[in-house]
């Protein structure tokens, strides 16, 4: 199944036009972003409502460190942007993980809003207008240029490669002792502590990894569009990525990827004037109703459809899957 999806994404550009290529590139970036949050929410049980902060910070760092008339090395800029997101995640996680439940949600939101207002209301981020990335980073390695970052097709494959890497990394991580400890923390943190696990350290590590992965997505997003603004750190985006993973199905990496595709494609659908005419401008309403209906009918998300069908046919309750696959 995964191989089929990977193959479909690999051959998609053969049939896609410019618009389709741009759209799927954007969706794959959202998928990386959703995977980053899935690590926290679906695998560790930490509902973070400030994930956009890490996404946006990586984007801003990429733009702010890029000279106006000169290309900076991609292989320096990208790790730096990711490290900045991870560093902010370390700061936010170290403080917010001392709280639980709804307080954790609100504290992560508060830290994200702090970051938002730093870029929105200070000269650092140039306000609501944002900043342009005039010259995209240079992917050359020792004079050899592996691909043209300005061209849509190579960039599509660059993003696809990152999506595959992030997915493979998380799938491996979740099967490791670290990943199983996170699953234990999600299932019963009290028991994990009584058994001998310092759960705070595990959760903080997961938080930082998640922030770094969101940073990868933020960097790719900004390099793709060549533009950054405070909306990339807004609670709207944090909410959207949370909806993506819920829509796709919590507890499985495939759910996060599926959710990102479903969310973005539903958004495109409801924005289509050719289909919805004047009502297309109320796409938020249509999207909201679609998500509510989906969650109500499919509590295990879109990824749970096959299991739901089997349940209806056999009358057996599906076994919960949290293996991260």
């Amino acid at each position, binding site marked *: 199944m995964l191989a089929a999806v990977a193959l479909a994404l690999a051959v998609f550009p053969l049939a896609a036009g410019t618009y389709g290529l741009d759209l799927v590139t954007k969706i794959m970036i959202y998928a990386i972003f959703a995977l980053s949050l899935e690590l926290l929410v679906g695998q560790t049980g930490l509902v973070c409502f400030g994930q956009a902060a890490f996404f946006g910070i990586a984007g801003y760092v990429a733009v702010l460190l890029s000279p106006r008339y000169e290309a900076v090395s991609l292989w320096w800029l990208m790790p730096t942007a990711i490290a900045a997101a991870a560093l902010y995640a370390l700061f936010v996680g170290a403080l917010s993980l001392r709280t639980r439940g709804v307080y954790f949600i609100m504290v992560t939101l508060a830290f994200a809003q702090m970051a938002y207002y730093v870029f929105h209301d200070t000269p650092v981020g140039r306000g609501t207008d944002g900043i342009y990335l005039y010259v995209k980073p240079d992917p050359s390695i020792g004079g050899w240029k592996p691909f043209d970052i300005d061209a849509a097709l190579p960039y599509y494959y660059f993003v696809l490669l990152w999506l595959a890497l992030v997915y493979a990394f998380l799938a*491996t991580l979740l*099967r490791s002792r*670290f990943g199983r400890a996170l699953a234990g923390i999600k299932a019963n943190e009290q*028991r994990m502590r009584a*058994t001998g696990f310092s759960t705070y350290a595990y959760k903080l590590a997961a938080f930082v990894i998640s922030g770094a992965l969101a940073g990868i997505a933020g960097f790719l997003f900004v390099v793709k569009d060549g533009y950054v603004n405070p909306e990339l750190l807004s609670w709207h985006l944090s909410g959207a990525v949370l909806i993506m993973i819920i829509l796709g199905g919590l507890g499985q990496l495939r759910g996060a990827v599926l959710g990102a595709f479903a969310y973005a494609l539903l958004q495109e659908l409801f924005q289509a004037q050719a289909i919805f005419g004047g009502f297309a401008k109320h796409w938020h309403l249509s999207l909201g109703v679609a998500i509510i209906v989906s969650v109500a009918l499919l509590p295990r998300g879109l990824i749970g459809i096959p299991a739901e069908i089997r349940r209806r046919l056999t009358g057996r309750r599906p076994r919960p899957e949290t293996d991260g696959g």
Partner: protein
Amino acid sequence: MAADVLLRGRELTRRFGGLTAVDRVSIELARGSVHAVIGTNGAGKSTLVNLLTGELDATSGTVELLGEDVSTWTQPRRARRGLGRSYQRTTIFPQFDVLENCRLAAQARDQRPWSWWQDARRAPLPCALAERAARRAGLGDVLDRDAGLLSHGEKRQLEIAMCLATEPQVLLLDEPLAGMGAEETDRMLALLGELKDGHAILLVEHDMDAVFRIADRITVMVNGAVIASDAPTAVRENRDVQAAYLGGQA
């Protein structure tokens, strides 16, 4: 010969605002013995266990584990040093199978959180410890079963198995017989009898028949304080205990 004391609580006190839940309680657990703590609901038994494990900080008093003062240690650190506990309410991982419950517990002994490339379910040491603990607790026939599908008695056995998987020297068992039928109780008592060799066991329990069958020493708590701590026969004959706890019926 002096008893091999593995865990010692000295003058432990815990206050919640104006309420003193545990009032200057001292207790010693020796290897090869079962020390039962009895008392009515609200007597402070579970709070005492929480103070010994580090789940709660003591207002005053000290805890020594294997001869070392661990009063300032966190709960996970004490657990890694050899302190295993079970809870009054079953705290297993219901969505994992029996072996994975035990394997995850055993992993606490050999955590290696940065071995990201290695599949946890193939880690030799935790897997071996897990299987041995599950079989010792009598769960050898249900290793692959989801823990949530076990009977109540089996879930309590799994709690013990998860403790054993961490290779503890001290076991603090909070009402392991709660909700069990006669047959399950007998099985659990037989298991505890086997575990006595090599472990120091603290047993918090309401089932008096079971307590008097297995305990080597009994501490009786009322309103957070110890009113008696002695051998079972002496406790049974203690007038304060009869008046305060057994209602003069013993």
